[in-house]
């Protein structure tokens, strides 16, 4: 059935599978460790766990301080998503849809904030806000997140826009549609899956971001910042508990959001 030339191909294919599964297991091992630690009844983590309990989960949920953190993080991620999607939508059109002078340069400039260490970017923004005489708060952090997230979302949307056929737009123009009509009736519906996944990226990246928030939130605190401060000084099992909750929430959002994107794409294809 298989020619001799193909047999080593299959063997290396199997090796690739084994390696990939191994790496995935390693990637999720620490997540699992955090989850285990959060289920430990006693104050200090010792493995194997003597008594499992959901006490720390309950305390975490009931904590007013943590509710405030979650509210701040959600608010930031929400605003970042809306603004980033708005800017990046046009950014992606310029990136992948239109041919214009200066596009090649623009494509490269967009990459620069991604190719930049975030802790340094956070500090640079701190100096800049300070020079402007601004007070650090969650609002300055939203701006900081945007500087990094808009380029990422632009790329995510641009990759999907490459497959967009401009002939559809042109056909609509030929039929006498105005520019707004074309945008609303032709361009947007086709690009929905890309916009949706861009928004999902924006929300989740903001939700999980630590290095930018660290320097730019001022007196406000986002979830990853609080976790870090407790890791460095004053471990409580609420750290792994909140960490696990944040992880699970992100996973649920990604799965639900990802399915919506798939449905949108199927509908487009139909």
């Amino acid at each position, binding site marked *: 059935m298989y020619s001799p030339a193909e047999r080593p*191909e299959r063997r290396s294919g199997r090796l*690739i*599978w084994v*390696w*990939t599964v191994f*790496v*995935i297991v390693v*990637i999720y*091992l*620490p997540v699992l*460790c955090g989850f285990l630690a959060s289920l430990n009844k006693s104050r200090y*983590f010792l*493995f194997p766990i003597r008594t499992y309990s959901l006490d720390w989960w309950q305390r975490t949920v009931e904590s007013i301080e943590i509710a405030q953190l979650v509210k701040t993080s959600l608010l930031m991620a929400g605003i970042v998503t809306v603004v980033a999607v*708005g*800017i*990046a939508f*046009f*950014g992606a*059109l310029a990136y*992948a849809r*239109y041919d*214009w*002078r*200066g596009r090649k340069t*623009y*494509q*490269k*400039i*967009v*990459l*620069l904030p*991604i*190719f*930049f*260490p*975030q*802790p*340094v*970017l956070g*500090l*640079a923004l*701190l*100096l*800049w806000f*300070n*020079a402007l005489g601004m007070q650090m708060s969650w609002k300055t952090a939203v701006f900081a997140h*945007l*500087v990094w997230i808009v380029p990422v979302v632009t790329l995510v949307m641009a990759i999907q826009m*490459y*497959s967009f056929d401009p002939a559809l737009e042109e056909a609509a123009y030929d039929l006498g549609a105005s520019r707004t009509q074309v945008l609303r009736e032709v361009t947007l519906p086709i690009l929905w899956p890309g916009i949706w996944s861009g928004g999902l990226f924006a929300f*989740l990246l903001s*939700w*999980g*971001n630590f*290095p930018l928030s660290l320097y730019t939130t001022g007196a406000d605190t986002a979830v990853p910042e609080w*976790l870090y401060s407790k890791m460095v000084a004053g471990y409580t099992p609420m750290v*792994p508990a909140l960490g696990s909750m*944040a992880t699970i929430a*992100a996973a649920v959002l*990604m799965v639900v959001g990802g399915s919506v994107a798939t449905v949108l794409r199927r509908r487009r294809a139909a």
Partner: protein
Amino acid sequence: MRTLSVGARCSLPVYALLVLGFIAPLLTVVAYSFATPRSFDAFRSFTFDNYRVIFDPANTVWMSFAWSLALAALVVAILTIVAYPIAYGLARTFGRWSSLISLFFVFPLFVSENIRLYGWVLFFIKGGVLDGSLKSLGLGGGPDVLFTFGATLFGMVYVYLPFMLFPITLGLSTVPRDLVEAGRDMGASRFQIWREIELPLAMPGILIGMLLTFVLAVGAVAEAKVLGGQSIIVITHDIEIAFTYAQNWPLGSALSVLLMIIVGALSMLGIGRLDLDRILGRR
């Protein structure tokens, strides 16, 4: 009056954001690096003192630079080998499983790195998951690896895997299958196909991955703090200390400028040569 093209107009919001949120902050850092040491007189004073302090032979800050560069180089070398087979699988052999498997590699990006690194602390620490499991199996304790150079390196390899994996995958997917088939039909060995066809054609993607991983790793700090227990001090850690405990913003800025020069020079050199349309999928 010449009006802007539609494409140029679409790029304006992004440009505005980058001018206000990227270029202006970096220029502020440059301005601060020339301010009087231990002052907040950016734009009002001009001195080379901060740079003089850094380049003073008695100052050991160059060691932090050396650590960061060495770590970044090691991370790139290890990750290229770790990620290449997975990228090959994603681009070629996984077929319909590809998107699900990519999701597994994307997801960690949405969990803040300190949560994931802390999971490793819980795994490796005395009385933690590894140590405890080995003990209950009667195999003695776990190895004492936490808070070492190796732990820092491991943490960085762990955190930056997706940044290497996805560019290589993009690179490998641009290799036309017909070309590989043609090579095989003409009797090329698998090594020859890899050397002569796959590797050169996938090179742009591989180089982006290496570059991205390198510049991010040079500026990394969480791994050395959480997993490395400050057994080595990386450059971003020195920068942070200058900004926080030492309250010496001009010195921290001068260090940042040097780091920015390394990162900026590499990025521009690398990004400048790319044809992004080809890599990202305009056919």
